[in-house]
């Protein structure tokens, strides 16, 4: 229903996508250059690593959101689903004392399962994605508190757990660049998502659903099944984000998560993915997420007052999307 009004300007998907990526990328470079000139402390290894670390969770969430947004849908539950997955891992590892691999699996499975439910509500019950995932966001927020008993679950009994995000496999080979594992995981998720979008049937149907769902349906494709699959995949990716945040904090913080979906969606939009569906890239989203964390970090390093940091971030989001609109007019 919501996708019938998909915009007609869907020709030249490849060219426009590449152009926008270039634009977003030059924006990122411009920010980095400006901050480097403004402060000698910006372009330090430790700070670059801090920026990447800060990007990892939002980046993974934004990749999940990208998949859903390309179908013309929206997922408001990514933040609280991440928290729910973290709590499930906490229960499995700390409360039940299971080994680490089972905890990791539990998080991803919990995410996939919740995504499956959201997808089914949207595809089968025809509830609009905005409402279905808004409901899911609140349900998962509540369930995280219920399951955890409203207290953080610590991972002190699972010694290796904080290495998932904080350890550095790269650093053990090249000690001068201790890139945290969390960042590697972000790039790994991005690579897999980019592959799925460009090379698999799931990817092709993701774009097709966003471009013209009716046409896909009329050509005899089981639209519901593919839609559910997209939401389930996004859910599984949120499970990875849950592991990252829990590992970074060495605890599952049950009250955290609401509001994180907006940062994720902002990264997607800055990266050139269209909210009306049918167009978008994982690389763009990655750049969008980096722009958000570079901005936040750079403004902090320059001691810009927090009130103004938010004003600047908001302006950049509008600027990025306006640039996209101008570009589409000129094509």
């Amino acid at each position, binding site marked *: 229903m919501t996708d019938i009004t998909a915009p007609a300007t869907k020709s030249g998907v490849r060219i426009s996508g590449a152009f926008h990526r270039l*634009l977003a990328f030059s924006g990122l470079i411009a920010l980095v250059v400006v901050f480097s000139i403004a402060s000698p402390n910006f372009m330090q290894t430790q700070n670059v690593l801090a920026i990447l670390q800060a990007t990892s969770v939002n980046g993974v969430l934004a990749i999940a959101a990208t998949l859903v947004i390309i179908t013309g849908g929206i997922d408001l539950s990514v933040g609280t689903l991440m928290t729910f997955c973290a709590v499930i891992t906490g229960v499995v590892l700390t409360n039940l004392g299971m080994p680490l691999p089972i905890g990791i699996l539990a998080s991803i499975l919990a995410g996939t399962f919740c995504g499956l439910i959201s997808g089914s509500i949207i595809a089968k019950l025809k509830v609009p994605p905005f409402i279905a995932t808004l409901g899911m966001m609140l349900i998962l927020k509540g369930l995280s508190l219920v399951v955890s008993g409203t207290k953080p679950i610590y991972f002190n009994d699972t010694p290796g757990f904080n290495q998932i995000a904080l350890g550095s496999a790269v650093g053990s080979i090249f000690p001068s660049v201790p890139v945290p594992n969390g960042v590697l995981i972000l790039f790994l998720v991005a690579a897999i998502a980019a592959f799925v979008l460009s090379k698999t049937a799931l990817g092709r149907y993701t774009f097709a659903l966003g471009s013209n769902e009716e046409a896909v349906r009329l050509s005899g494709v089981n639209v519901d099944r593919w839609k559910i699959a997209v939401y389930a995949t996004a859910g599984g990716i949120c499970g990875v984000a849950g592991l990252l945040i829990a590992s*970074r904090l060495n605890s599952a913080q049950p009250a955290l998560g609401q509001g994180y979906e907006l940062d994720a969606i902002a990264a997607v939009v800055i990266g050139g993915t269209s909210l009306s569906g049918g167009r978008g890239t994982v690389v763009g989203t990655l750049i969008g997420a980096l722009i958000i964390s570079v901005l936040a970090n750079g403004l*902090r390093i320059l001691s810009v007052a*927090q009130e103004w940091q938010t004003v600047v971030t908001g302006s950049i989001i509008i600027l990025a999307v306006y640039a996209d609109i101008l570009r589409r007019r000129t094509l």
Partner: protein
Amino acid sequence: MLRRTLLGAISALALLSASGIASAQEKYDIALISKGFQHQFWQAVKAGADKAAVDLGVTVTFEGPESETQVDRQMDMLAAALSRKPDAIGFAALDSQAATPLLQQAKDAGIPIIAFDSGVDSDIPLTTATTDNVAAAALAADVMAELIGGEGKVAVVAHDQTSRTGIDRVDGFVNRLKEAYPKIEVVSVQYGGGDQLQSTEITKSILLANPDLKGIFGANEGSAIGVANGKQELGSKIVVIGFDSGAAQKGMITSGIMNGAITQNPVGIGYQTVQAAVSALKGETLPPIIDTGFFYYDAKNMADPEIAAVLYD
């Protein structure tokens, strides 16, 4: 053309901030990372820190996450503050454990850390600027004793039995009564999670079980409002002493449902955190705890400038 606009906007911003840096070069640069930002309590802490910055001639930045649940956002703020290489950091941890690696990093870089508000569960901070909750609750006990005439039964409704503030405020109140007022008996100490409704129900059950009760101490904002609501619903005449402020509690004190409350001194917390950081940078030794003070306020002294300055809506 677009790119030029974007670059223009960014370089304007850079100029703005670069000028800020130039003027700050010779002053001490102190970064405060708090638990919150928008909330009135934290704005009062910020006001105190800003005042100290002017008085002591240092530069202070103040940041905190949007809500007290966003532990990872606070870590990002702390990491960015570390990259800035400030002379000192003031830190109020949302979760001590999550902050440990970054605090260690600060220590290794030789940046002194001053904990404030609830402090940090670690030996890295040089000192903690915080409210002495035991003493603050003891003051509540003194006021309670005075208002009920030094004898009779009282009760406590607190927020929880695990948090530091919960433990300290209950102990401070109960122990003070035990030591100084042998004729006062604490008949019940109950916990309502700081939830107004739950605290209301608890209060009503205490009042129904003890018709001769003379007073109740509500140990935080939510508990205190709950106690006052319970008193009102049953039409009771007991003495109610609350804790902290907030528009609702202040209104209840003005209207007389609540006799008065203990307030912390958030402005003092901010001021003394910055002061302690400067002392540390000058190589002075600091006490392990800096008591930032507290006051008892009621309808009579609420408008006094000294009190009004530390109350928040």
